[in-house]
Structure formats: C-alpha cells, structure tokens
C-alpha cells in the first residue's frame, strides 16, 4: 500500500509516475461530494491508521524507548518494507526485530535497547498465545539416559540474551498502559506521555531471560548464564548430557553442579517447560 504523504493524505504521484488523481479516476467513480482521489484516499489512510495502531498496541515498550513520533516513523518504514503477510494482525510484528537489525537508523542513538525491546515484545506476543503442549513430568526425565535424551521446550518459550535489563522496564510500561486503558477507552487519550524519565533509567547490563506462559499469564523469568546456555542447547537439539556440558561452560565444573542441575530441571519441569521426549 502506498505510504501516505507527509501531511497524512494520499500521495499525489503513483509509483508509475502518473498523477494519483488520474489513476484513481480511471477506476473509481466520483461521488457528489468526493472526487475519485478523495474516495481512494479514505482507504489509503485507513490502511495506515489500522496497521500503525496495531503496532502501537503491541509495542508499548519500544514506544517508550523511542518516543511516539519516532515510533510512528519507524512503524511506517517497517510496514512499507514488510507489509502484512498473515490473515491475522497478531503476526504484524514478526519481522520487526530483524528490520531494526538491518536498518538501525530508525532507532539511533538507541539502537541496542530498541532492538532488545523489539525482541522482548515479540517474545511476549509468542508467549501469549503460542501452543502449550502436554508437559513432561519430572519422573519421566529421571528415568531416561541423559546421553541419548533430547527434550523439546514448549513452543511459547523464547530464550533471550539482552544487552539491557528491560524486563522490569517493560512490566512497568505495560502496567501503566493497562491502567490508562482501564481509566478510559477514548481514542484521543491513546497517545502516551513522553517516557524520558523511564528511558534514562536504562543501563546496559546483560540479561538472560526466558519469556514464557504459566497459568495463562506471560512471565519473564531471569536465567543464570549457565541456565541460558543449557536451555539454548536443548532448543538447538542437543542431548541433555550435551546441554549440561554446555551449561558448565569452558571453566571447571563446580562441585555442586550436579545438585544445581537437578534443581534447575525440577523447576523447569514444574513450570511445564518440557513438552515431550525426542
């Protein structure tokens, strides 16, 4: 769909170089009150309003990092490059993080926190309504041989290694959004206030997260680096033994490592993160 002109109306020229007035008049009848151009413009504007609104709702954290105006420019550029290819608007942001990686100019000078936030917010979308397969019980783990056993993580889990500690930041933002929505549904009040105070609090600090769903609520669970390595290895189809080796890392395996592994697996099994043996 043709991007809107800077003033928010339909562009005067078609991609072919012909005036849009002539193009519209070729196939749309004018009405008593509207020209063909104006009638087509209604659809052109509605398209952009609808899709930008969808990204606006799905990415409150990225909006807070960038501010509303920059977010809107980014949304337009992203949608122009990646029009929706799904029947569902739920999937509209699927390629946003990739877009930010390839075109960091839309988020400069906040490239890193913006990219981290886009990844975290997409993980949130995935955690919200991806499938939850029947979880594997802890007992079935104990009975299997770690050297041959491969585990699959639930489809709603995304493992993230972020450069910024964004989990608390996003929780705050989403809570504020929810309160605002509950206070009023009026469209005029949708635009968020500048979040400069919040943005200033962003400090680079590595963060390992598992974004997942538990009892129908999305959670951001912080992981130790070793836990992250282990789960990532399992996701990459390593055996449990191989993943545990990856978790131990290059350094010497600490004496209590076996006990820690047991405790990790117990927690993850209790959360229902493993869905079936492979």
């Amino acid at each position, binding site marked *: 769909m043709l991007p809107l002109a800077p003033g928010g109306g339909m562009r005067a020229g078609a991609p072919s170089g012909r005036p849009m007035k002539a193009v519209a008049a070729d196939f749309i009848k004018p*009405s*008593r*009150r509207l020209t063909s151009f104006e009638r087509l413009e209604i659809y052109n504007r509605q398209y952009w309003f609808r899709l930008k609104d969808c990204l606006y709702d799905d990415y409150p954290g990225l909006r807070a990092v960038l501010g509303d105006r920059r977010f809107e420019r980014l949304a337009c550029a992203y949608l122009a490059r990646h029009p929706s290819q799904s029947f*569902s*608007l739920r999937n509209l942001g699927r390629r946003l993080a990739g877009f930010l990686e390839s075109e960091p100019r839309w988020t400069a000078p906040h490239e890193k926190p913006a990219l981290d936030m886009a990844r975290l917010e997409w993980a949130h979308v995935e955690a919200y*309504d*991806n499938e939850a397969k029947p979880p594997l019980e802890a007992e079935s783990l104990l009975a299997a041989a770690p050297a041959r056993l491969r585990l699959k993580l639930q489809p*709603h889990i995304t493992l993230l290694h972020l450069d910024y500690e964004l989990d608390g930041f996003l929780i705050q933002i989403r809570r504020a959004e929810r309160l605002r929505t509950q206070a009023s*549904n009026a469209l005029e009040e949708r635009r968020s206030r500048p979040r400069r105070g919040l943005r200033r609090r962003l400090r680079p600090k590595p963060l390992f997260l598992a974004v997942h769903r538990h009892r129908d609520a999305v959670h951001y669970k912080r992981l130790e680096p070793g836990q992250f390595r282990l789960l990532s290895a399992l996701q990459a189809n390593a055996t449990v033994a191989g993943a545990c080796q990856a978790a131990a890392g290059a350094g010497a395996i600490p004496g209590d490592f076996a006990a820690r592994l047991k405790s990790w697996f117990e927690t993850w099994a209790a959360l229902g993160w493993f869905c079936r043996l492979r």
Partner: protein
Amino acid sequence: MPANVFNGHTDFGIGIGLRVPHYDHILSRKPAVDWFEIISENFMVDGGQPLKVLDQILEQYRVVQHGVSAYFGSAEPLNREHLKKLKRLVQRTKTPWLTDHLCWGSVDGRYTHDLLPMPYTFAAARVAARKIRQARDFLEVPIAVENVSSYAEFHVSEMAEWEFLSEVVEQADCGILLDVNNIYVSSRNHGFDPFLYVNGIPAARVAQFHIAGHAKYEKYILDTHDHPVIDPVWKLYEHALGRTGRTATLLEWDARIPSFDEVHREALKANRFIENLDARKIAA
C-alpha cells in the same frame, strides 16, 4: 427468517460482540445474553488466554463466528492454512453458522486487513460464489456473507450493490448477514435509497442482522462501530425485519467501547422492533 438453512435452523435472539474489555464482567457476573459473536481471527491461535476465555464462554453461552479475512472477493484462491485453522475453531465453538464479508482485501499474499468493496460484475460474483461454496464444503457449516460499508464505487460495476449481493448468494446458495448500518453508511456515501437495497435482496436468505453506530464526517460517513445506533438505522432495521421476520440480531461496538451494560442495553433496543413485528403479526 427465525430459523432457516442459512443459520443452521436456529432461533437466536439478540446478541453482542465478545470484546476484551468485557471479559471480566462476563466471566464474573455471567449476564443473561442470548448469544455472543466472536471475531474468528482473534481465536485462531494455538493456545493461551484467548482460547481459555473462549472455552469458558462456550460453557455458558451460544457463540457464532464472524470472520474478517476470508476475502471471498479476492482473486486469489482461498488460503488453505487459514481454512484449516478456521475449521479447528468451528469444531471447538460448534458455531451453527459462520459469517464473513463479501469483499476483498489481499493481493499476492499481502493482507490489507481492510474490507474492500468489490466491482459489482458478473465475473466477480462468480469468483466470490465459487469461493464461498468451497469454504462451506470444507468447513461443513452454513455460511452467510455480510455486505460491507464502502466509500468508493468502480466504473466497471455492472449492477447495484444489492443486485450483486443477490447474485452472489444465489450462485453460492448461501445466506446473508445483512448489516443495516453498512447499508445506511453506503447509501449516504453513494447516494442511493437504503430501503431500495433492503427490498432488493432475497429476504429468505437472511441468516442474521448486524446493527452498529458510525461516525459522520463533513463529506462522508465512516463505519466506526463506536457510537450507539442512530434512528434512521433502527428504521431501516425495522423495515428489514418486516421483510425477513424475526432474525438473529447482533450489535457491533468495537471502538470507544463502553461498559458491558451500556452495550447490552443498546443491543436490546432491537427488542422493541421485534415485539412490534410480533404484535403486527398477531393483529393481522
């Protein structure tokens, strides 16, 4: 018609659209609502809160599915993956009939997420009717197509919108979800008589009505579903009811959504027209 082949021989009364801001109210207070309409696409997901809420609703209420992205009017074939997901949802909800729009909205696998008007040509009617039949055969549920509100008309159109709608539903042998607000909006935008529209469609195929509010701009009316139903739309609804007899009716309120009670009260206003209709029948 109260019960016909196009609405699965059901006799539903007045329903409202199931919307997120009302979930808590509905699940905690369990208000008496004859039926809910769900937007199919919102529940064509693999898990999580949407399906949990839906299952809770299904335990207590009758639900009818309403889609926004089948795009029977698009030139490309039906999306098989979309249909498979839709069928899984149909099996879950046991919707007695299923509705979507007589419109197009996708090209070459790219989606506008809009309900774009079709050129009213015999060729376009054939394409849409074939796709509706294919969808019905795959989904194994009666389908009713909704007339959309529109802001543009095409030079190539060969007939009026209501003639086109009739042509499609006759060819597809499917039902109509008659949106009287959409008729009103389009009549104002294009300058036709909305009563002529209602008189021109095959009343026996009407499976359901939609009523809604809209927003008025200087030069056109926009179908925003963010206001109460205005009197001229109620009059059109009454006239349409006179042709169809009492028929399942649903109020759409999708933006600036007020409290559940306010939405429900607005929907129940339809009762007075249904009661008038019944009274007239008895008197006759």
